[in-house]
C-alpha cells in the first residue's frame, strides 16, 4: 500500500548525510547516547559520516579512540551495561574481527548469562563491502558471519530512509545491534519523505514488485539488483526485488511470500557463496517453500577469492547487474 506521503514533500540527500542526520538526531534526543570510534572526531570519520559532530557535541560525546577495536568495543559493552546508549563505529567489518571476542563472547552472552539482569543496548556501526579499490583486507562482506550469532540483530540499510531511521530502532533495542553500511552507498542520493519519522527493523521490503522471478538481496547489491530488474523488464521479465534489510532475525515470511508468487528465485549476496547469508536464505526456501518452486534456486555471490585490488579484477569478483540478468533470465526462459 502506498502511504499518501506526498513526494513533493521530500528532501533529496546522500546516504552519508542520512547516516549523519540519524546520529545527530540520536545525540540530540537522548543524553545517554555517545559516539566512539577511530578518527570519528577530529578527522570526521573515515567516510566522513561524523564530520562536524565533534564541533557540535564536544569531546565527551564524540570520542576518538585508540586503534584497538577490542578495547573500544569492550568499553561500549561496559557502558551499555551501566545504562548508556553507546554508538560504536568500527571503520570496516574487516577490522571488526579484532573485536569479535567482545561482540560474540560478551555483548551477546551477558544478557543471557546474567539472567536478564543486564541489557546491552549497544549499537555498532561498520562499513562493509568492496568496490572502492582498497584491496583484499578492506573489501570483505562479512555481515553473514554476524547473522550467524543468536542475540544479535543485524541491519543492512540500503536506502536513505533506512540509513536515516534504522538507528532509532536499533537504539531502542535492549540487545546489541550491528548496522552495516556498504561503502558504495555513501555517495548515493535518494528522496527522504519529510513526514517520515521511523522505519521498522524487523521486516524485508519489496523494492520492486514482479511476478516472474524473485531477486533477493540487501545492502550494496540492492541497486545492482534494481538495475538488473530494469534490464529484465525491457526483455519482458518482471522481477520482484526483495531488500532483506534485516539479516538477523531473517524475515522468512516475506521471502516465502515472494517465492510463492514468482516460484523462481535468485539470491544476490556480496558475501562469498560458501556458508553465506545467501545459503541461509536459499535453505529456508528449500525447507519451507519447496513445493512453491518451479525452478532450481540460484545465487549470484562474490567469487571465492580474496577481493583483488585491480579494478577490472575487483569488478569481475563482485556481483554485477549483467550477471544477475543472465542468471534470472536463464531461470525464466531457459535457453
Amino acid at each position: 500500500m502506498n502511504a499518501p506521503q506526498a513526494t513533493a514533500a521530500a528532501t533529496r540527500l546522500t546516504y552519508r548525510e542520512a547516516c549523519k542526520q540519524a546520529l545527530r538526531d540520536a545525540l540530540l534526543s537522548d543524553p545517554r547516547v555517545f559516539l566512539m570510534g577511530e578518527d570519528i572526531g577530529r578527522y570526521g570519520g573515515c567516510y566522513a559520516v561524523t564530520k562536524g559532530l565533534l564541533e557540535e557535541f564536544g569531546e565527551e560525546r564524540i570520542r576518538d579512540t585508540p586503534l584497538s577495536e577490542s578495547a573500544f568495543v569492550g568499553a561500549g559493552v561496559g557502558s551499555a551495561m551501566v545504562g548508556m546508549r553507546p554508538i560504536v563505529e568500527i571503520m570496516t567489518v574487516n577490522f571488526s574481527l579484532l573485536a569479535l571476542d567482545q561482540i560474540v563472547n560478551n555483548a551477546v552472552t551477558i544478557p543471557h548469562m546474567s539472567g536478564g539482569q543486564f541489557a546491552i543496548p549497544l549499537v555498532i556501526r561498520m562499513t562493509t563491502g568492496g568496490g572502492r579499490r582498497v584491496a583484499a583486507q578492506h573489501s570483505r562482506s562479512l555481515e553473514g558471519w554476524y547473522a550467524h550469532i543468536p542475540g544479535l540483530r543485524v541491519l543492512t540499510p540500503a536506502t536513505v530512509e533506512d540509513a536515516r531511521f534504522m538507528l532509532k530502532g536499533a537504539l531502542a533495542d535492549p540487545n546489541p545491534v550491528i548496522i552495516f553500511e556498504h561503502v558504495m552507498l555513501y555517495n548515493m542520493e535518494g528522496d527522504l519523505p519529510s513526514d517520515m519519522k521511523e522505519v521498522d527493523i524487523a521486516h524485508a521490503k519489496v523494492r520492486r514488485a514482479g511476478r516472474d522471478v524473485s531477486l533477493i538481496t540487501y545492502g550494496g547489491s540492492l541497486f545492482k539488483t534494481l538495475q538488473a530488474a530494469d534490464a529484465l523488464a525491457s526483455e519482458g521479465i518482471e522481477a520482484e526485488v526483495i531488500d532483506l534489510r534485516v539479516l538477523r532475525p531473517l524475515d522468512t515470511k516475506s521471502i516465502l511470500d515472494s517465492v510463492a508468487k514468482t516460484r523462481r528465485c535468485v539470491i544476490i549476496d556480496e558475501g562469498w557463496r560458501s556458508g553465506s547469508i545467501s545459503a541461509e536464505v536459499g535453505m529456508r526456501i528449500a525447507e519451507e517453500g519447496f513445493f512453491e518452486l518451479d525452478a532450481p534456486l540460484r545465487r549470484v555471490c562474490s567469487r571465492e577469492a580474496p577481493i583483488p585490488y585491480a579494478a577490472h579484477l575487483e569488478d569481475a569478483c563482485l556481483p554485477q547487474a549483467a550477471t544477475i540478468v543472465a542468471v534470472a533470465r536463464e531461470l525464466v526462459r531457459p535457453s
Partner: protein
Amino acid sequence: MPALGADMEAGTLVEWLVKPGDRVKSGDVIAVVETQKGAIEVEVFLEGVVSNILIPEGERVPVGTVLAQIDGAPGAAPPPLIEPAVAVLKPGPQILAQAPPTPVIAAPSSRLKITPAARRRAAALSFDPTMIVKGTGVEGSIRLADIETYASGAKLVQRPAKKKGLDLSQMRQAIAAAMSRSKREIPHYYLTETVDLNTASTWIERYNAEKPPVERILPAVLFLRAAALALREQPQLNGAYENGAFIPASSIHVGWAISLRGGGLIAPAIRDTDRKSLAELMAAMRDLVERARRGNLRSSELTSPTITVTSVGDRGAESVTGIIYPPQVAIVGFGRVVVRPWVVDGRIESHPLVTVSLAADHRVTDGHIGGLYLAAVGRLLQEPDKL
C-alpha cells in the same frame, strides 16, 4: 509415428502386424499403437515391400518418427514391375542407409525431471506428468507452465502402453483435457431448431418394413446424412481452427460420437459422409460402434473428423448442446425424438419432433451462418426420400 489426434506428440508401438519382406498396399493395417483412446491400428498409405522395421515393439517415439522402411515408397526406388519376390532379396535402396536417427526420448523408466511446483499442480489436476515428453524448464525440466499447457489438452501425449485395449481412466483424462481446452479457447455460440419428423418417421417405417433387420435404418442415419449434406451449403462449419486461422476441410468426414460401455466417448470419422447412401451410412455406423467398443479403431478414423455429430438416441435427453472438439469448429446435436403438439395449417396435430442444436466457433462463423445451416438440416429432413 502418425499423429492420432491433433494433440498427440508421441506414441508407443505396441505390436507389429507385418515383418520385413511383407508386401503391403494402401489401407493395410501394419501396426498397433497405444494412445489414450486405446490401441489404434496404424494404416499404411503406400504400396511396397516392408524392408526394415526401425522401431521395436514397446518403444515410445515422437510423432513423425520413421517406424519402418517400405521399398517402393516415394523417395525410394520405384518397385520393380516384375518379379517382386526377387526385389525383396535385393539390398534396399540407398535411402535406407540414410534413415533418420531415432530421436532420443527419455526412457519411461528414467526419473522424471519436474519442479516441485509442477509436481504438486499435476497431482491437484490428477494429471500424469510422465505424459510430457520434454519440459520447458531449466535443463529440460517439466515446470508449472508445462503442466498447465499439457493438462489443458494443448499437447497431450499418451503414456507408455501397459496393456492393449481401452484405458477408461486415461480416456476420461483425455476427454477432460480436450473439453477444458475447448471451453477455455473456443468462444462457442449455440443455436437450436425444432424439426418436424412426421414425414421422416413415416418414411423410415415404410423403408424398414420391407427390409430384413440388418438392413433397417435408424432415424440417426437420416440425421447424419442431413447434417453432412447441409455442410455443403455452409462449408465454414466444416474444418479446423489452427494457429489463429480457419482451415476449411476439402471433404466432409463427420465424427460420429459414440458413448462407450463403462463410460467414455469417442467420435471416429465416417469418411465422405455426404457421399454415402443411407444404407452405407448405417453399415458404417454399426461397424464403427462395434469396433469403438472393442477398442479397435483405425488411426485415420480418429484424426480425420472435420465436424462432430452427436445423436443421443431414444434413451437420451430432449436436446443436447455440445462442446466442440478442437480443432474442429462445430458440433451438431440431435436430441431424443419426442411426440409433441405441432401446429399444421392452424390445427394442432401430434407429431414426432427432434431438437437439432449447433454449437459453433464464433471465431469462424456467426449465428447467421449457423441459423442457415440448421434451417438446411430441417429442410433436408422434410424430404427423406431425397436423402
